[in-house]
C-alpha cells in the first residue's frame, strides 16, 4: 500500500509540474524561446492568491480567478516589453533577457513584500478519502483533476479551434503562417497569456501542498517543470503532460526509497539519461524536410 500511496502523491506533484511545463513547452513551440521567468510568474500568482485570501478575505475560487487574471496580464506584459523587441535578436540575447526578467521579478517581490516567508492559508480541507488503508488527500485529488481538465481543454483548443490551428501553423512555419494572414505577434501574445494563466493555477495547487510563500518560491518548481518539458519533448503538449507526471513520480519514489537529499539529483540524472538516449525527449520529434 505504501508504494501505491507514493505513486498517487507522485502523480499529484507531477500534475503541478505538468501544468507549469505546459507554459514552457507552448512558448517554446511558438516563440522558440525558453522563458526562464515562467517560474517567477508562479511566484507572483502565489502572492496574489495569498493576499486575496488573507487580506481581502476572498473565497478560494475568486482568489484563483484574480490570480489567473494578474498572471495572464503579467505574462503578456513581459512578452511585450522584454521579448518582443528581441524578435530578430539571437537566441542567446533572448535567453539572457529571460533570466534578467526572472531576477527582476524575484527582487521586485522582495522589495514589495519582503523576503520573509508567509504561510499560505489552508484553502483545501485536510484529510481525504481512505479506502483499504490507502488515503488519498483532497489536495492530491483536486490537483490531479485540475491537471486532467486543463490538459483536455488545452488539447481540444489546440486541435479543434481556428486559433489553435493558427498557433500550430505559427509553430511550424512563421513565414507561411504570415502568408495566410495570421498575425504571428498576436499568436505569441495568446501563448504567453495561456501559459501564464496556467501558472496561476499551478501556484495555488503548489501552495495548497507546500503552504509557504516567498520570493524564490517559483525557482525550483520552475526549473523542474522545465526539466519535465524537455524530458517529454519540448514543444509537445502531450510531452509536457507525460514528462511532468513522470518527473513527479520519480521524485516522490526517489525520496521515499532512495534518499530525501538526493531526490532532486536523481530527477536531473534521469533527465540527462533520457537526453543521452533520445535527445528530442520522450514525445519530441525531429522534422525532416521534404524535397
Amino acid at each position, binding site marked *: 500500500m505504501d508504494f501505491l500511496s507514493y505513486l498517487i502523491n507522485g502523480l499529484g506533484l507531477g500534475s503541478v509540474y505538468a501544468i507549469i511545463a505546459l507554459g514552457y513547452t507552448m512558448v517554446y513551440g511558438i516563440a522558440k524561446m525558453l522563458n526562464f521567468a515562467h517560474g517567477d510568474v508562479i511566484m507572483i500568482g502565489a502572492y496574489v492568491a495569498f493576499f486575496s485570501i488573507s487580506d481581502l478575505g476572498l473565497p478560494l475560487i475568486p482568489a484563483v480567478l484574480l490570480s489567473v487574471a494578474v498572471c495572464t496580464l503579467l505574462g503578456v506584459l513581459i512578452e511585450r516589453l522584454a521579448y518582443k523587441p528581441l524578435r530578430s535578436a539571437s537566441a542567446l540575447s533572448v535567453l539572457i533577457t529571460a533570466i534578467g526578467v526572472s531576477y527582476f521579478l524575484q527582487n521586485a517581490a522582495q522589495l514589495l513584500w519582503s523576503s520573509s516567508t508567509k504561510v499560505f492559508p489552508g484553502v483545501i480541507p485536510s484529510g481525504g478519502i481512505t479506502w483499504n488503508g490507502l488515503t488519498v488527500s483532497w489536495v492530491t485529488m483536486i490537483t490531479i483533476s485540475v491537471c486532467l481538465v486543463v490538459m483536455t481543454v488545452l488539447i481540444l483548443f489546440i486541435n479543434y479551434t*481556428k486559433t489553435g490551428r493558427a498557433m500550430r501553423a505559427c509553430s511550424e512555419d512563421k513565414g507561411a*503562417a*504570415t*502568408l*495566410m494572414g495570421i498575425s504571428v505577434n498576436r499568436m505569441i501574445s495568446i501563448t504567453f497569456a495561456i501559459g501564464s494563466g496556467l501558472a496561476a493555477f499551478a501556484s495555488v495547487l503548489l501552495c495548497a501542498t507546500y503552504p509557504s510563500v516567498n520570493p524564490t518560491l517559483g525557482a525550483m518548481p520552475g526549473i523542474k517543470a522545465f526539466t519535465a518539458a524537455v524530458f517529454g519533448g519540448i514543444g509537445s503538449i502531450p510531452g509536457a503532460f507525460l514528462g511532468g507526471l513522470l518527473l513527479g513520480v520519480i521524485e516522490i519514489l526517489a525520496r521515499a526509497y532512495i534518499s530525501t537529499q538526493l531526490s532532486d539529483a536523481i530527477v536531473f540524472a534521469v533527465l540527462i539519461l533520457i537526453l543521452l538516449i533520445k535527445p528530442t525527449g520522450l514525445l519530441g520529434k525531429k522534422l525532416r524536410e*521534404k524535397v
Partner: protein
Amino acid sequence: MLRIKDLKVSYGMIEAIKGISFEVGDGEIVTLIGANGAGKTTTMHAISGLLKPRAGSIMLDDTELTKIPAHKIVSLGLAQVPEGRRVFAQQTVEENLYLGAYQRKDKEGIQKDLGDVFSLFPRLEERRKQMAGTLSGGEQQMLAMGRALMTGPSILLLDEPSMGLSPLLVSEIFHIIEEINKKGTTILLVEQNAKRALAIADRAYVLETGCITLSGTGEELARDERVKKAYLGG
C-alpha cells in the same frame, strides 16, 4: 493592378534587389525569369511583405503595400505560394486549406472556394484527412496552391511551382496555372523553368543579379537570342 517601382531590398549590407520596376496588369500572367540568386524570391517576399524593402514602392491598385504589416496584405487579395511549398506538415490537408481562409469571414464563400479547390485538385479531396507531411512533392505543391486560392486572391504569386517535380507533373501544374488565370486571377510567376514559363506568360521580365535586364511579351523573350542562350539551353 500591381505596380512595383524602384524597389530595393537588402540583406544587411548586401543589396539583393537594386531598384527594379515592373507591373502586372489585371488578368495577366506575368513571369519573372532568372538564374539562381538573381533575386526572384526576394522580390516575391518583398511584395507579400515577408521582407521589408529598403526603398521603392509596391502598389496594389491604390494601396501602398510596403506600409502594411505582412499578415494584413493577404486580405487585400494578394496571395503567395512560397518556394518549397511550405505546407503545414503536421496538419491535415483540410486544415491547411482552412488556414488559407483564416482571415475570411464569409462562410459560404469559403465553402464554395473549398469546392473549387477540390475540383481543380481532386487528389486533395481524396486525401483531405491525411497529414500534409505525408503527401508527395507534387501533392504538396497542389496543396500549397489550393491553400493560397482559399485566401480568395485577385492576384496569385507563384514561386518556383515546378521545382523538383516530374515532367508530367510540371505539365499538369502549368496547365492548372493557366486554368486559374482563365477564371480571372492575375498571376505573377517566378520560374527557373524559363521555357515553360514563357510559353504561358503574357509578358515577362528577365532578372539578373538584382536588376531587370530585358522585358517583353512571353513570345518575344522566348525568341530573343540572349534569353535563348542564357535560359533556354541554346
